[in-house]
């Protein structure tokens, strides 16, 4: 029972069912501007497994070597040939896991104690927010996160930069990341402000089909018994998805959104009474990523329909007098579009 370090994550493609969750994660991987994913649902439905598997599917990105903030190489400097000695390095898009026991100093960054003690220097030691820049920040059990950390995250997520004013340090660095959260609503609800920061939200339920459930157990069991062999068996399928994401990432910005789709999106949002423009924007971005994943260059109304639940269900006004499930309300609004 010796611990194995460097464990291989459970392959994304080996997750049984949960198509909506997989779809949401793929969309977030294709277009970070969609604004993060919240996966809420029952215990043991593979929430955190799916998010952790995401790391293996992301393409590499160029960074300035040695930069603690994963800064992108300045294209101007490269083309001008000014700093030819700084060759960009390719690193995998970071997926940073924020453990619940993390202290604030490690999240935002703090005084480098070692250098302070040994050399009397005041140096900044970047934290998790720096590491997550241009990547993903994953918080499991996001609904149990301490309030002061939530405030901090909300602020950084809104401004895209991390402002550190502590221990006599004054540092500002970029912190643009896709927030991915998961949790079980039975253990506590999410603050509305934080809920609003997530572009897409997924509701996962325990599968009811016995065949599916047995298949889940079987695959998980195979994986646990021999991780290396299992991941090898799934390597081809993982490769296919990885290529699909890479292709969609390149293509997504050139995917066209026709006027008719814009109109339908507006009608849907008005019908549901979602607050503000954020819902509509997310809906369109997600539709675009969805079309790119399907290899199309034009968004169709069907793309919009497929992502409407993900993009809108957590944006409906909570009406204490209406008990209807948000998912049902979105479904009704989608039906109403046909009339």
């Amino acid at each position, binding site marked *: *029972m*010796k*611990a*194995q*370090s460097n*464990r291989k994550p459970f392959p994304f493609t080996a997750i049984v069912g949960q198509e909506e969750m997989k779809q949401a994660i793929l969309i977030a991987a294709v277009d970070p501007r969609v604004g993060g994913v919240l996966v809420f649902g*029952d*215990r*043991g439905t593979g929430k*955190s497994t799916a998010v952790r598997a995401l790391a293996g599917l992301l393409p590499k990105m160029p960074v300035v070597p040695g930069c603690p903030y994963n800064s992108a190489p300045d294209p101007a400097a490269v083309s001008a040939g000014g700093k030819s000695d700084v060759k960009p390095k390719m690193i995998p898009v970071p997926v940073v*896991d*924020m*453990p*619940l*026991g*993390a*202290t604030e*100093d*490690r999240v935002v960054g*703090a*005084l*480098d*104690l*070692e250098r*302070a*003690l*040994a050399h*009397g*220097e005041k140096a900044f*030691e970047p*934290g*998790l927010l720096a590491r997550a820049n241009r990547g993903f920040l994953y918080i*499991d059990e996001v609904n*149990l996160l*301490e*309030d*002061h950390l939530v405030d901090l995250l909300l602020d950084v997520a809104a401004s895209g930069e991390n402002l550190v004013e*502590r*221990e*006599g340090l004054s540092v500002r660095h970029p912190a643009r990341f896709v927030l991915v959260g998961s949790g*079980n*609503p*039975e*253990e*506590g*609800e999410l*603050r509305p402000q934080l809920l609003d920061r997530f572009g897409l939200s997924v509701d996962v339920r*325990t599968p009811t089909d*016995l065949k599916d*459930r*047995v298949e*889940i*157990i*079987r695959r998980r*069991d195979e994986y*646990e018994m*021999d991780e290396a062999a299992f991941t090898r068996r799934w390597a081809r399928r993982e490769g296919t998805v990885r290529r699909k994401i890479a292709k969609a990432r390149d293509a997504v910005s050139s995917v066209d959104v026709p006027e008719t789709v814009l109109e339908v999106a507006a009608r849907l949002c008005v019908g549901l009474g979602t607050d503000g423009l954020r819902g509509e924007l997310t809906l369109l971005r997600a539709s675009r990523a969805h079309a790119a994943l399907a290899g199309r260059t034009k968004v169709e109304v069907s793309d919009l329909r497929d992502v409407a639940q993900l993009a809108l269900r957590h944006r409906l006004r*909570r009406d*204490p007098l209406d*008990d209807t499930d948000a998912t049902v309300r979105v479904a009704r609004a989608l039906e109403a579009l046909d009339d």
Partner: protein
Amino acid sequence: MMAELRATSADYAALALPVVAVTGAAIGGVWLRAQASPARQRWLDSLTELRDRESPWVRVPASIDEDRLLGGLDLSATLAAGRPVLQQGLMPAADGGYMELRMAERQSAATVSSICSMLDHGELRLERDGFSEDLPVSACVIACDEALPDADPLDPRLADRLGMVCALDAVHASLIGPIETPVSIAEANLGWRSVRVDTASIQELQRIADALQICSPRPVRAALHTARALAALWGCEVASEQSILDAAAMCLINRVPGALQQLLSPPSDATEPEPPPRSTDTDTADVGNDTNASGPKPEEVADATAAVLPDQLLAGLASEHARQAKQRAGGNANSEVVGGLRGKPMPSRSGLPRGGRRLDILATLKAAAPWQRLRGGSLGQLRVKREDLKVRRFTEQTRTTTIFVVDASGSAAVQRLAETKGAIELLLAECYVRRDQVALVAFRGKGAEVLLPATRSLVRAKRALASLPGGGGTPLASGLAVATQVADAAFKRGETPVVVLMSDGRGNITLDGEPDPGLATEQALAVAREFAARGYVSLAIDTGRRPSARSQRLADAMRARYLALPFAGASEVNDVVREAAA
């Protein structure tokens, strides 16, 4: 040959020992449901003897600090070395061995989260006090759950990840001890992973899990591991039907409190909790007999399981289980004991560690460090000045619990129940925004009941309210009495109770459930005065058709603010509650 359930819970407790010693961390851990008793001690001692002597055994006390559990800055070593030195936490110390969790049901939500994360990923991600490390930790968690039936149960997140379940409360200590197995534990340890389990057996385990309403796949996976370990211990290459049934009993059926005991003891003496003492040797000896390598016959396992699990019992268990799951969901896993010096940590502030305030060593060091050159400090001789001192700050956890006491009697139901519900729902939405907890007490017919224990789930509160029927007499006194109890409980947990009574004040049922308007009114006033003595903030909303002197009198007795609903819009009511809660 038919697979059969074993005779007593003691047999399963004894059988669990070699299984846990073989699988170790792969099974997650053991949910050890037992009060502190000789039986529990004996079980733990037996496991310490059985395990690989090299592997660590770490004891984690109740309400452990995160610093101590996960690790943090070692002050003296840091000062001596002149560089940050990590003090290893208990969790990483348990790597490759066992972690005994005392009073597991009392551990904080944060501790439980850290342990769950370790069990899921086999590592501890440390992001604390300037340290950022991934430490491999693979430990088998032995969670001693001492929860009494009506107390807060073990955190369901942790329970879900503990594959083996042992209930020892009805077991005599003399019956517990390591049992002889044909294959040694060390040998089984090497070979158990290669034991085959066919798909039909997995299906069988899944069916049993479904019948018990165990939704998560984790317990079924643990049952597979257990079946493998059992087969390996008895020298088989394929998991036999007996091993599948044993695994189901230990990992699945035992998960529902009392289920296994009920199955094992005949219905006639179901009230007798302690099974008759039996020799473990004779019971366990026959494990090996049927475990030939011929492979299992799933139909027989199915039959055996069906035979031992009568439908009615299962249905009963299922509803019992569902009820418990419901209770758990509303449990106060998030509530923490209040005290001026406890609660959620806040960033440290300058100040002196006086009046019980604790020094934040790390922050103090950080404040002092940059000045060492100027002050002439050196390695091992840090010069710390008064202005460097930082103290830990905590936000006071004065969480408010709003207790709605709703009159659902006939007189109220006819005219105002719907309106009352509407008003409460608006209040609920407000409570949700303020992150208050909400409890719901309703009274109608002959008595009062707690419809919803304190919860933060708006959805559950709404559901409980929507399903609240109206009709019958008005047991106002009972309603107030129950509300007082709920408020007391909240107060004891360190929350601030706010009681909102919504009634027309026309009590006509006594505390004993008898219709007697005169006595009922007197009792209601008496209970109200008793309530007033506690000094809780309260609000009496008159839901009658028009304001009445009776309601006013009751409000006075409660020392509650009085509001008449016809004149008070929902938002006004809300303002008052907010004021009261502030």
